[in-house]
């Protein structure tokens, strides 16, 4: 969780150096979900994700050096510079890929679930997406197929209230509850506070157990909030689609601060200990940026490679 926060904030700080030359969607504020969901996944379990995938990638254990190098467009990047921030992959930890078209990676995750079923349900396929994705037809096709075929798929919906600058009201009916809607389709579904890392952990744990015990898919909806602009490094509460107050209210629900408060209040860890962890995370992150900056760009001739396998 802290690693994700630190990395995202470093990207935000350094984006204006114009060295990370690709559209970049940060997840600052939403870190609890990827962290606590991932904590319930085994390395063999697969993940697919969206445009906003840094957290999912890092949560799954994806290589941080390679991620930053990818955003810098270097050949040492996890996609060798072909993909950029919106196309991450780390096969070592079965992070199978993130893609940039809304809803695009979801059915691919369903296919991964089907392959798992054919191999005796040997692992879970975890599919991350935003609440905007639930408006795409492919979302429903995917959920329907996963239920019909009884696939070991874990759907994780990060409902951060916005799709770019559009609030829920213009996109979904007033009283829509996504977890209720999919229940009507026939999938087991859970719903929780996406900024409470313990909640997320517990619910995911339940969902994973449900999948394992029943060989059926399960659905998680978490409410959360992205702090920064939709795409890019800045804050944008001033441009008018949401209020500063809304942002500040959500900032109070900072998943990290609250978790630290919880841990220290309950005396589970000492603040000092946590600070030491932070330090090591920060140096890991700095190292990643150094690695990226020092790496080479792929050569322009490489562009014609990898078109066909």
């Amino acid at each position: 969780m802290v690693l994700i926060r630190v990395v995202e904030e470093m990207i935000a700080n350094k984006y204006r150096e114009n060295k990370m030359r690709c559209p970049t969607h940060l997840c600052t504020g939403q870190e609890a979900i990827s962290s606590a969901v991932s904590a319930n996944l085994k390395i063999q379990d697969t993940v697919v994700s969206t445009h906003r995938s840094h957290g999912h990638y890092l949560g799954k254990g994806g290589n941080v050096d390679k991620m930053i190098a990818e955003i810098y467009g270097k050949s040492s990047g996890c996609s060798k510079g072909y993909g950029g921030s919106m196309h991450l992959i780390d096969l070592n930890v079965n992070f199978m890929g993130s893609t940039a078209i809304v809803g695009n990676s979801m059915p691919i995750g369903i296919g991964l679930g089907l392959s798992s079923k054919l191999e005796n349900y040997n692992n879970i396929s975890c599919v991350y997406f935003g609440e905007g994705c639930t408006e795409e037809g492919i979302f429903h096709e995917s959920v329907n197929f996963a239920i019909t075929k009884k696939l070991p798929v874990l759907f994780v919906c990060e409902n951060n209230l916005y799709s770019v600058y559009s609030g829920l009201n213009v996109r979904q009916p007033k009283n829509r509850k996504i977890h209720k809607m999919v229940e009507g389709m026939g999938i087991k579904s859970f719903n929780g506070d996406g900024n409470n890392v313990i909640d997320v952990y517990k619910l995911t744990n339940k969902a994973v157990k449900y999948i394992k015990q029943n060989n059926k898919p399960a659905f998680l909806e978490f409410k959360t909030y992205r702090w920064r602009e939709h795409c890019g490094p800045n804050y944008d509460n001033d441009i008018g689609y949401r209020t500063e107050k809304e942002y500040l209210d959500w900032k109070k629900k900072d998943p990290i601060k609250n978790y630290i408060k919880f841990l220290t209040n309950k005396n589970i860890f000492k603040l000092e200990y946590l600070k030491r962890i932070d330090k090591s995370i920060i140096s890991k992150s700095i190292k990643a940026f150094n690695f990226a900056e020092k790496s080479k760009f792929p050569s322009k001739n490489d562009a014609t490679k990898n078109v066909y396998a």
Partner: protein
Amino acid sequence: MPKKRIIKFNEAINEAMVTAMNLNKKVLCFGLGVDDPKRIFNTTKNLKEKFGSDRVFDTPTSENAMTGVGIGMSLKGYYPVMVHQRLDFFLLAMDQLVNSAAKWHYMFGGQQNIPITIRLIVGRGWGQGPTHSQSLHSWFAHIPGLKVVMPSSARDAKGLLLSSIFDKNPVIFIEHRWLHNTTSEVPVKKYLTPISKPKIIKKGSDITLICISYMTIEAIRAVDFLEKENVSVEIIDLRTISPINYSIINNSIKKTGRFLVLDIGNEKYGVASEIISTITIKLYKYLKNPPNKITLPHIPTPTSFGLTKDFYPTYRDIIFEVLKMLKKKTLKNKIPVLKNLHDVPGNWFTGPF
């Protein structure tokens, strides 16, 4: 010498499917109706019985998601073969095809392959009309990362489907409905016909006919008459639409100096235009004549028996155009008339599909 075995195009497809699924357990077959009583015009006959319902299965009417499912299976080493009874239905899946399947290998730096094969059937005649008869192969060919295969004989259907299934890239495999019932000699054994390689069907010296899919049949029909008129025709069956290895074509053009492209797609912005453009750019100095093409007119497919009368070009149009290109005169009424009604592959065909 052993007797030649003659089988139908749809049987050859079926044989390729059985062969592939026997060869490799990771070959799958799915799509609407693959295990229903009609078995996709018998092309998926016995598959479910032989290989079980894990590997051969019907699906919901969800073309886009099912394409994604195939991509996901590919990532785990499967070789999915998807089937659509009409190419037109597959328009719902363009995002998965173009934004995922075609680019996955590239955009993740070559780390994964998508060896999916998508069989699309192109309808014709008997009132298939505007949305059950489109052949949009030029769309697929325009997308780097995809391969597009369009056989015209039973023999090639088997060999090319096998190559497509085991090719590491996404392959669009297009079957013209009027080919399913045609026959040719087909070896019983497994064989892989190379993708990207056009085939010379008949040697000749005056003009090269470059044929796509079903138009190869019409080209062959045109030969008899043309030879009688002392025209020596070279027929090349493209077989693969993208990518094309041009060396066979180039040699032919260097010899004949004239060519005519025969396509089953719309007239404009199609594969015929690409081939004309490519050859013109490269072999300009060998050309004796301006090139030409015979395609569908650039209009949607009408439905009525009356409206379709001139819609689909036949050997008659080929004969007429070849003679024109060679500046030979012929009386239109000397060209033999069609044996069937124009909207059926044979008068035995009574619809509805």
